[in-house]
C-alpha cells in the first residue's frame, strides 16, 4: 500500500527523515520501502487495516516510535449549516451485513478544481484526480482509512436503503460495467433501483458530475466476509472492497464522515446537514486485563507496568488500574498476547535478551520413515545413483501408465479443481514419469544415467485420497534391468528384509517391455516392481516404502564366519530357451541337499551352433559344512542329486 511521506509528516510533525522512518517502521511496525520521491510502500498486515491502512494510522505509529506529538485531523466534528438531516431517510434492511450506515445531505456544492496539495497526496498513493468531490472521498479514505461514496442527491429518489438485491436486478457501475445481481449481493438502493453495490462500487445513475449541486455522502461499515466473497464472485475488486474485506471498525465511519464534511466545506463550499446514522448495535469497547506479569510470562523478559503503560498510551490505549481499554479502531487486539505484542514491538525486538529454554530432557526421535528414507538415500548414492526431485503435479498423460502394483488399477487420477495449465493439472500417481524424463534429459550429457527419487504419489481409491511414500529408481545403461535387480536385492537385505520373492508378471502398461517385469513380494504382498524399460535401454523400479517399512526387521544377528573351506562345482547344460533361470535356481536350491551354500548363474549364452531354441547355462554351486572339511565323495553325491533333479524336471543336455 502506497503512502505519502509528506502527509504522514503533516499529521505527526517532527525532525525525522524518510529513510529514518522507513527503518524504524520496519523494526517496530510494518515492512516499509522507500519508492523514491514522496512515496513509501508500507505492507500493512491484514489484521491492521482498521487502524493502520491510513495516513493517520501510520502517523500514529511514527509518533509513538519517535515520541512525537500527534494531531488527529478526523477528531474534530464539522460545523453543520443545518440542524436537521434534510429530507431523506436511511434504512438498513440487513443489519448483519451492514452494521452502520451514515449519510449526510449536503447542498451548495460547486465542483471546483482539486487543490494541488490534495492532488499530490492522491498521486503519491497511485490514484488519479477525477473531480473535487470524488477526490475528497478518496483522500479521506487514504487519510482516515474509511472508504466513502458520494451520490448526486438529485439523482436519488426517496431515501437510501441498504438491502439485498432482488434477483435479476441490474446495475451499471461508474466504470460502465453492467451486472445482473442475485439476492446474495448487498446494494444501496433508492425507492426505485440499486444505486451502488455496497462497499464495492458506485452506480452510474447517481454519479457525481461537474454539474452536481447536492450530495448524499455515505460512510458505512459492511461485513468483511460478505465483501470479500462478493467482490471475488463479481470479479470486481476496488480500493474500497479491498479495505472493507478486512475487519474495519464501525468507529471509522463517523471519523470518515467528519473529515469528509470538513473538507467539502473548505474546498467546494458545501453546506452540510447533520448526518443520519443508522447504527443498531454500536461496537463495544474492548476492556482487557492489564498485567505486566502476564506479558512477562509470554515474552520471557522483565516488563514493568509503568514502562508498558507508557508505550501503550502512545498507541491510544487507555490504562485504568488493572484494566486496559483498547482503541475502537484496534480490531486486531482481543487478548493479552496482543497487548504483549504491542509492548514488545514498541520496545523493539533487538532489546529482547535471548534465553535458553528450561526443558526436561526427553529423547529426541525421528519418525521411523524419515530414518528409513535416509538409510535408502545413503545406500543408493553409495552404489552410484543420484537423487532427483520431480514435480508432484504432472499432466494427465503422465498418469495411469506405471505397472498396477503400487498404483491401484481401480484408483482414479486426482485432478486439481483450479489447474494452472494442462502440464500440471493432476497429482502424480507414480514416480516413473519423472524418472524416465530424468533419464532422457540427462542422456545427452552422460554415458550412463542413474537416478532415484523418494516422494509422495496419489490416487483416489473408493472416494478417499490415498497418499503413499514411494522410492523410484531408474537407470539408462546396458544390462540396466539386471543392475536394478541386483541393487534391489542388496537394498532389501541392507534394510533388514530377509524374506522376499520376485515373481514375473505380465505387464501391459506403458513404461516396460512385455514380459520384462517382476513384482517384489513380501509375504504375499506386492510392495513394488522391477522392470526393463521399453523406451530406452535400462531399468526401472518402484517400492512402496510404507509397506516395506512394516516388513523390515532391523535386528541383525551375528552368524559365525565359516571355519571350513568351501568346494565349488560347475554344472553346464543346454536347455530350451523358454525355461527360466529362476525356476532352475529354485529347483537346485530346493533339491533336498543340505550342503549347498549358494547357487549362482556364472555364464549363459545363445548362438546358432546351439540350435534354434537352446541356450547354454553354467551354474556354480558352492558346498560347505560348518563342522568339517567336505570330501570330494560327499560333494559328488550332492552334485549327483542336483543333476538328477535338473535332468528329471527339464529337458536338458549336459555338457
Amino acid at each position, binding site marked *: 500500500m502506497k503512502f505519502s511521506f509528506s502527509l504522514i509528516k503533516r499529521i505527526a510533525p517532527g525532525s525525522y527523515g524518510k529513510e529514518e522512518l522507513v527503518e524504524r517502521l520496519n523494526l517496530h511496525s510494518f515492512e516499509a520501502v522507500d519508492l523514491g520521491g514522496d512515496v513509501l510502500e508500507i505492507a500493512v498486515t491484514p489484521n491492521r487495516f482498521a487502524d493502520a491502512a491510513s495516513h493517520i494510522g501510520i502517523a500514529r505509529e511514527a509518533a509513538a516510535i519517535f515520541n512525537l506529538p500527534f494531531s488527529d485531523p478526523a477528531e474534530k466534528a464539522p460545523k453543520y449549516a443545518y440542524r436537521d438531516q434534510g429530507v431523506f431517510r436511511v434504512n438498513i434492511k440487513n443489519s448483519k451485513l451492514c452494521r452502520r450506515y451514515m449519510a449526510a445531505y449536503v447542498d451548495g456544492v460547486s465542483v471546483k478544481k482539486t487543490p494541488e496539495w490534495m492532488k499530490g497526496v492522491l498521486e503519491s498513493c497511485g490514484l488519479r484526480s477525477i473531480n473535487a468531490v470524488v477526490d475528497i472521498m478518496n483522500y479521506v479514505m487514504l487519510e482516515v482509512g474509511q472508504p466513502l461514496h458520494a451520490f448526486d442527491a438529485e439523482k436519488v429518489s426517496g431515501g437510501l436503503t441498504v438491502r439485498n438485491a432482488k434477483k435479476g436486478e441490474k446495475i451499471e457501475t461508474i466504470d460502465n460495467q453492467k451486472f445482473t445481481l442475485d439476492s446474495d449481493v448487498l446494494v444501496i438502493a433508492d425507492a426505485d433501483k440499486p444505486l451502488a453495490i455496497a462497499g464495492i462500487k458506485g452506480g452510474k445513475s447517481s454519479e457525481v458530475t461537474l454539474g452536481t449541486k447536492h450530495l448524499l455522502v455515505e460512510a458505512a461499515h459492511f461485513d468483511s466476509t460478505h465483501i470479500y466473497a462478493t467482490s471475488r464472485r463479481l470479479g470486481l475488486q476496488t480500493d474500497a472492497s479491498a479495505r472493507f*474485506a478486512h475487519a474495519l471498525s464501525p468507529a471509522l465511519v463517523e471519523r470518515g464522515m467528519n473529515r469528509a464534511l470538513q473538507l467539502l466545506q473548505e474546498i467546494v463550499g458545501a453546506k452540510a446537514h447533520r448526518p443520519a446514522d443508522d447504527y443498531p448495535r454500536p461496537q463495544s469497547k474492548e476492556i482487557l486485563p492489564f498485567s505486566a506479569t502476564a506479558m512477562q510470562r509470554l515474552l520471557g523478559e522483565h516488563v514493568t507496568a509503568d514502562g508498558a503503560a507508557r508505550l501503550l498510551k502512545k498507541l491510544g490505549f487507555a490504562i485504568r488500574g488493572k484494566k486496559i481499554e483498547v482503541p475502537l479502531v484496534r480490531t486486531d487486539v482481543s487478548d493479552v498476547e496482543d497487548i504483549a505484542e504491542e509492548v514488545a514491538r514498541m520496545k523493539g525486538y533487538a532489546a529482547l535478551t535471548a534465553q535458553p529454554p528450561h526443558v526436561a530432557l526427553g529423547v529426541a526421535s525421528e519418525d521411523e520413515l524419515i530414518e528409513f528414507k535416509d538409510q535408502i538415500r545413503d545406500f543408493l548414492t553409495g552404489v552410484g545413483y543420484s537423487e532427483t526431485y520431480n514435480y508432484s503435479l504432472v499432466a494427465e498423460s503422465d498418469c495411469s501408465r506405471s505397472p498396477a502394483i503400487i498404483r491401484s488399477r481401480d484408483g482414479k487420477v486426482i485432478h486439481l479443481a483450479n489447474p494452472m495449465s494442462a502440464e500440471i493439472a493432476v497429482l502424480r500417481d507414480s514416480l516413473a514419469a519423472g524418472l524416465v524424463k530424468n533419464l532422457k534429459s540427462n542422456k545427452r550429457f552422460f554415458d550412463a544415467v542413474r537416478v532415484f527419487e523418494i516422494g509422495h504419489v496419489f490416487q483416489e481409491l473408493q472416494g478417499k485420497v490415498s497418499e503413499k511414500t514411494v522410492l523410484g529408481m531408474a537407470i539408462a545403461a546396458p544390462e540396466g534391468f539386471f543392475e536394478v535387480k541386483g541393487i534391489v536385492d542388496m537394498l532389501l537385505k541392507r534394510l533388514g528384509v530377509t524374506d522376499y520373492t520376485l515373481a514375473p508378471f505380465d505387464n501391459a502398461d506403458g513404461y516396460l517391455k512385455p514380459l520384462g517385469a517382476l513384482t517384489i513380494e513380501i509375504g504375499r504382498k506386492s510392495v513394488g516392481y522391477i522392470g526393463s524399460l521399453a523406451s530406452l535401454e535400462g531399468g526401472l523400479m518402484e517400492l512402496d516404502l510404507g509397506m516395506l517399512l512394516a516388513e523390515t526387521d532391523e535386528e541383525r544377528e551375528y552368524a559365525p564366519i565359516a571355519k571350513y573351506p568351501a568346494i565349488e562345482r560347475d554344472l553346464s547344460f543346454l536347455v530350451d530357451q523358454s525355461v527360466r533361470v529362476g525356476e532352475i535356481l529354485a529347483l537346485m536350491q530346493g533339491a533336498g541337499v543340505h550342503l549347498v551354500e549358494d547357487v549362482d548363474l556364472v555364464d549363459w549364452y545363445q548362438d546358432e551352433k546351439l540350435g534354434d531354441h537352446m541356450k547354454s547355462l553354467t551354474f556354480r554351486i558352492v558346498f560347505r559344512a560348518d563342522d568339517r572339511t567336505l570330501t570330494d565323495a560327499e560333494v559328488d553325491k550332492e552334485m549327483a542329486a542336483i543333476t538328477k533333479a535338473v535332468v528329471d524336471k527339464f529337458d536338458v543336455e549336459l555338457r
Partner: protein
Amino acid sequence: MQKQDIAHLAQEAKKSIQSAKTAAELEALRVRFIGRKDGEVTKLMKQLPALSVEDRRTVGPALNALKNEVEQLLTARVKDLADEADRRQAIDVTMPGKKVATGHLHPLTLVEREIRDVFKAMNFSVVEGPEVESEHYNFDALNIPANHPARDMWDTFWLATSDKRQATSKKNNMSHVADRLLLRTHTSPVQIRYMEQHQPPFQIVVPGRVFRYEATDASHEINFYQVEGLMVGKDVTLANFKFVIGEFFKRLFKKDVSIRLRPSYFPFVEPGLDVDVECVKCGGKGCNICKDSGWLEVMGAGMVHPHVFEAAGYGPHEYQGFAFGLGLERIAMIKYNIPDIRLFYSGDLRFIKQF
C-alpha cells in the same frame, strides 16, 4: 685339476651371469655351471673321488664355495633383472586418479539433513505429515477463516475429488464440514496434527513439501519445501525462541551470524515475527544477495496463537510456545549461491552432481 681352473671358471661364471639379460639366459647359465647332470662345476665335483686325499681337501671346499657363489650370483642377478623390469614398467603415479562413479544427494536433502541435525542436537524430534490436506488443518484450525483476506497470503491448489473429510473440531466438540481437500500451502497443519496426539512439553521440526498456486520464476515454484518448528510447554517464551533460533543459524551457517526479529503477521501466531539473518555473503555490509540491506529474510515465526491451541484441543492459556517456518530452497540458495529455484526441480544431473 688346478686351482687356476677353478678360479678361471669362477671368473667365467661371474662374467656371464653379470652380462645375462633375461631370466632364460640365467636359467641356461645355471644349467651350464651348476646343472645337476652336466654343470661345469658339477662335473668337476664328480671328478673329486679321483683326486688324492690332499687335493680333495683343498679342491673340495673351493668347488663348494664356487657352487654357492654361482647360486648367489644367479639369485642376485634374477632379482636385479626383475627390479629393472619393474622399473621399466613402473606406473606413472602422476596420472590422474580413476573416477569411481558415486551418486549424489539432492542439495535440498543435504540442507534438510543439516537443519534436522542442528535441531536434533537441541532435543527437537522430527515428524512429517501428508501433502494432501483438508481445509480444516491447512486453514481453519490455524486461525485462517474462509473469506478472510489473510487467506490471500496462501494461493492454493484445490483438489477436484469426491473425498469429503469430516474434520472434528475439538474446540466446539462438534463435527463440522471443513471438508474441501487441497495441497497443503505450508507445513503448519502438522502443528495441529501433532498437538492432537501429544501433550506438552515437546519440541518438533517438520520438514516437507508444500504447494502454492503461483507463476514460477527464479524465486517462485509451484512446489517447494518448508521446515516447520514448534516448541510448547508451560513457560516457553519469546526470549526462548530468540535463543533457539539464534543458535540454529549459527550452527547452520557455521559462523557467528546475528539475527534480527521484526514485527509481522501470521494468523496462527501472536506476536508474529519475521526473522532476518545477517547476510552471510557480505557480513552485513550490503551486497547483491541481500539487495544492499545487509539482512536476509529467512523465516516467519511467532508465539502460537491461543486459537490454535484451542483448535488442537488444549485448554485456553494452558500452554504457550513458539512456532516458526523456513523455506528450504531459500536456505540452500543462500548456502550454495544458487541463483534460480527452478534448478532444484530440473532433474539435471549436471546440477545435482555438484553437491
